[in-house]
């Protein structure tokens, strides 16, 4: 469980997050909102790249913000980025193993854990293949594998389906749905694809201009008038 209390982030004159208070229970939670709403900023606070002006984040009973950024992975935070960040020159195996090795998990189980993560996401590529030889969809799967390997506590997925064709988004959706049961981690999914969000997330929160404007069961939230208005008259939400 993640408890966010009064989180405020300011960059110069812009307030990216404005007193955001929210509790993420378990399973997969969606986080949506128009561009600039503060979703990625929130992720950056969780990753430790941005220091909030105010507010606290308690994750599984611990003060997340007091952990140094590069140690959060060891603690159990995993993240994918909007622009995929798998390392091209390394193999699939090395990319996933890197997370494992820097999380200081037992070296003995490494191979099994890594291969398990690769097969979990359903990546049908040679683990020794260089990531630069893979297609966009496959690279996304490598990123998700990096996010689920080992024993993550919190998995942050930032627009994992961006730019992917329907078929691959379907597959990704399937994988994301199985993350909580496979890893026991709390997963937060940020995306603009509403069908993906409603397929994967039991609950969803909505940000607009850094403020929380709705949260609750996904289907209800997506019908909420305030949410529809925030997306500037997007008639089709589902």
């Amino acid at each position, binding site marked *: 469980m993640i408890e966010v209390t009064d989180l405020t982030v300011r960059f110069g004159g812009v307030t990216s997050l404005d007193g955001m208070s929210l509790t993420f229970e378990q399973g997969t939670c969606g986080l949506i909102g128009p561009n600039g709403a503060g979703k990625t900023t929130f992720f950056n606070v969780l990753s430790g790249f941005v220091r909030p002006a105010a507010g606290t984040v308690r994750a599984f009973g611990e003060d997340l913000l007091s952990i140094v950024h590069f140690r959060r992975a060891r603690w159990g935070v995993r993240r994918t980025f909007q622009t995929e960040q798998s390392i091209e020159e390394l193999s699939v195996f090395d990319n996933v193993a890197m997370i494992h090795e*820097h999380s200081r998990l037992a070296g003995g189980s490494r191979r099994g854990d890594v291969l398990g993560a690769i097969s979990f996401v359903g990546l049908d590529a040679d683990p020794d293949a260089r990531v630069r030889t893979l297609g966009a969809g496959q690279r996304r799967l490598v990123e998700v594998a990096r996010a689920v390997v080992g024993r993550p506590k919190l998995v942050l997925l930032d627009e994992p389906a961006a730019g992917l064709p329907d078929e691959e988004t379907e597959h990704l959706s399937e*994988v994301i749905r199985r993350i909580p049961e496979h890893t026991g981690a709390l997963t937060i999914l940020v995306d603009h694809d509403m069908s993906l969000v409603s397929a994967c997330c039991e609950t969803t929160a909505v940000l607009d201009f850094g403020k929380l404007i709705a949260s609750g069961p996904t289907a209800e939230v997506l019908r909420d008038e305030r949410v529809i208005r925030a997306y500037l008259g997007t008639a089709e939400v589902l």
Partner: protein
Amino acid sequence: MLDTASSTAAARQHSPLHRPGTRTLVRTGVIALLLLFALLALPQLLSLYYIDTMTQVAVYCVVALGLGVLVGRVGLVSLGQAAVLAIGAWVAARLLFATTQPYPLVLLEAGVITMAAGTLIGLPALRLRGLYLALITLMLAGAITVVLATTNFPNGGHGFLGYNGSSVHIPAIRRPGIAASDPAYFRYSVVVAALMFLLVFAHIRTRPGRAWAAIRQSEPAALAAGINTTLYKLWAFALASFVTGVAGGVLAGAVHYLYSIDFPTQDSITLLAVVLMGGAYSLWGAIVAALLLQLLPALLNNWGVSADWLTILFGLGVLQVLTTAPAGLADQVPRDLARLGRLLRRRVRRGRPRRPARSGGGTG
């Protein structure tokens, strides 16, 4: 695709890491052959003039290697490696005059002390990125150059600086007993260079190399993966400084006499130029860089052409590399070499590796 069949297939497909494929064997064979050629054949074939030149090439291979690690692997541009080389040479000269320690020990000490100095330079530098990092290395190197101009290189004198301004007879910096002659010293320098390459290679193939690749690609992603980027960046500085320091020690023995005008600020810039031209990423690029930097001028000198043409060439080379590089400063092999490599590989393998376009970042 989520079935168990593919997972066992993947497990079977995935060979134990480090089983050498044919490609690796061929490459090792080529390297071994080249080394043997350099050690045994070259000294017989070349005149003393060119043996001296090739010793310089061996030295600067290592310097280029260090800079290549920084620029090509981690993505940190240092404009101060010539100053680091000077520090290494200074330390080695001082120790060689002041003590009777065996040569390998002196080289090691020069490497370690230079490593400490280089890491100290790296510390403040790490808070800066990109351009500012390059500038601060340029500034610190410039400051060191000025200090060196005043303190001079050791020449057998006493005191900490070991410099005697009024000596009439300046002793030569000694060489190891087994490698006193020029051809023998050339072999010695090749062996030392090979060891340095091995050291760097070992780094690249293991955890630090992978961490550097992650950092170069994206520092936030590396941090999110649990990599202590500050530590690994310092490590890169330490490694680059160590090998450059050792190279400085070899240089001291090669030239016998060191003068501060031998290490002008401009050298750091030319060094970056040839490293970019040779390819900052690949280890072979370091050798190409050293050949450009030391062999070409020697050839030109021999033919009566001014070496200034090379300075112009290097300047144009920098411009060419930068304007045609596909992505970052660090991760490119010069277009022509890359094209050649792809051509050769296509003969061996079918199909070309795809390069999907990157999408720009959005806002959240």
